[in-house]
């Protein structure tokens, strides 16, 4: 295996028409892979003997579970918005995660107590979704998109750069992520929900510094301020930040067929 790696890196150094991406097998640049357990199953302990005498986890007793008043109010408001209260499971878990930093057993228990659901049900929901963390993580979520359009523009190297810039700071949760729906600013990242791009490797340090400073992240690269690419979309009011390149000579590409 070592020899294989060495051979691969030699060939890359040799140059030639090598693909841009430096992604090798098992490189950290990939999406967090779905965990596999015995015999390749996705379910841990799937072939362990079942304890038939064990009681199922029950709905937590409101008398013994201490739920913060804010969280309870948020969850109850969410439950009231839907015809079926169960629909509030994801908003409730989002709220609990915001408070606890992740969907910890205590967080799940509090949600279960307010929603009158079993912790097992909520754990099943939480493990399904990428944004609900079922392990302790840093409180600043930095998702670097590593899907096709972004990787064509160097996302894998960017993810490595952001990881390196964040170092082992426990406040950061840097992840390679599925397509975030912003391929126009590839390569891009979502920093605590704020989209920034197109990023260069040098922006990684700035991104981490901005998060640590607590202010706006890469204010000049935020998607929210970016005008539409279509040169004809700029309104009479004039687009803030100017129109896309090529506005003056809008191509007459729109001929009716």
């Amino acid at each position: 295996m070592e020899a294989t790696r060495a051979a691969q890196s030699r060939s890359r150094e040799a140059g030639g028409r090598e693909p841009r991406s430096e992604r090798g097998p098992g490189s950290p640049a990939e999406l967090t892979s779905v965990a596999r357990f015995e015999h390749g199953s996705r379910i841990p302990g799937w072939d362990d003997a079942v304890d038939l005498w064990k009681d199922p986890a029950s709905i937590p007793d409101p008398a013994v579970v201490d739920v913060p008043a804010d969280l309870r109010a948020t969850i109850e408001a969410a439950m009231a918005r839907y015809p079926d209260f169960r629909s509030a499971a994801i908003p409730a878990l989002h709220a609990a995660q915001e408070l606890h930093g992740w969907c910890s057993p205590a967080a799940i228990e509090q949600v279960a107590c307010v929603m009158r659901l079993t912790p097992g049900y909520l754990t099943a929901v939480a493990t399904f979704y990428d944004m609900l963390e079922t392990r302790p993580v840093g409180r600043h979520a930095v998702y670097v998109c590593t899907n096709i359009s972004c990787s064509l523009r160097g996302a894998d190297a960017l993810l490595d750069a952001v990881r390196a810039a964040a170092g082992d700071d426990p406040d950061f949760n840097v992840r390679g992520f599925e397509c975030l729906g912003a391929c126009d600013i590839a390569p891009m990242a979502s920093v605590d929900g704020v989209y920034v791009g197109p990023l260069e490797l040098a922006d990684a340090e700035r991104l981490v510094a901005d998060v640590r400073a607590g202010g706006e992240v890469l204010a000049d690269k935020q998607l929210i301020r970016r005008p539409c690419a279509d040169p004809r979309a700029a309104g009479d009011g004039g687009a803030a930040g100017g129109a896309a390149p090529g506005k003056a000579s809008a191509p007459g590409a729109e001929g009716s067929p």
Partner: protein
Amino acid sequence: MTELLLLKDIDEPGLNTLPVYERRGGYESLKRALAMPREEVLQNLLDSGLRGRGGAGFAMGKKASFLPKGSMDKYLVCNADESEPGTFKDRELMQKSPHMLIEGMIIAAWAADINRSFIYIRGEYAQQAAILDAAIEEARAAGYLGERILGSEHSLSLVLHRGAGAYICGEETGLLDSLEGKRGNPRLKPPFPANQGLYQGPTLINNVETLATVPHIIRLGGEQYAKLGTETSTGTKLVSVSGDVQRPGNYEIELGVPAREIVYGLAGGPLPGREIKLWFPGGSSSPVLTPAELDLPYDFDSMAKAGSMLGSGAIIVVDDTASVVDVTTKLATFYAHESCGKCTPCREGTNWTVKMLKRIDAGEATPMDLDIIASVQQQIIGNCLCVLGDAMAMPVGSLVAKFRDEFEAHIERRRAEAGLGAPLAEAVA
């Protein structure tokens, strides 16, 4: 075409607020629609020939007409879980013109006699969700949402629901399960959502762009709208162009223009000194096409005839500096990660495909593995509850078929690097 529908003045400052949207003629279509009997509104949608903009391309008016008549709990769900790689058109619409979507939803709900509606927006779109929430609040305060809208007999509630990061929740039945507070596993169809959807009630599910087009159809009239585009692909479409082009972004085109005009004319073509190697015409789930096929008209039927699909209208351009094996591995890894795990062919097929592609990169594969990869794709297609597996199998199958030479060269090179170069012929035999 000189007139933009969806992107017109989209960058006007404050268009996301009600006063500016109204000054731009917003909610006029709603007033017109509410003045008509609902059958006439539905007829306009049918006449428009508008096909769903989310990927499947099913006629929107027809889908609305499938809902049973009579008074019962019916639901309208806007699918804003835009997660098909390469697609980012709905994001721009929701962020800059949220009221266009809300107006479209109110009209569509009127046409299909629906009183409860939801927008399921992907969890990652936090900023867009905040903008939409503010817009919904404005619309409610102005009487566009709620009981007896503008004095008519139409009532509608609208709830914005944020997802939490799962590609499969863009699949309509997976979305419904997720909206019901469960894991987003797709359901068996039939029953189709039009009969049994959200909370077991009849449900109309449409993409953001589809619903945002509705006010324009009412403004122009269905028949007039149908004159745009081609006979079977009417109207205008937002195209998200990304990848190796000079000006990636959203462009509004009339369906039927040659794809070359989109990729070269609007998006500026490949970067200087590079050539296009391949392109995905409708997101990463669509089988890839070659540069020669850029001359095809960009519409639903032409793309289907070429063996691909228009999908969500996301063109991803890949140029000659990219490795096809890398692109394929990226793609397969994504689908393996996003498979919900319910159906075996998809869960294991995507997993195997990734493993086999990694063997290529590790120098452990032979060209025979390409046949196995191709056969695995064939075993996935059509054998699952939803099309997530197909969404990997179709592009991977097309990549292996169309770029077999490059795959084989890559296999040879990696084998040589791993010290397995010489006895390849024996290994195959």
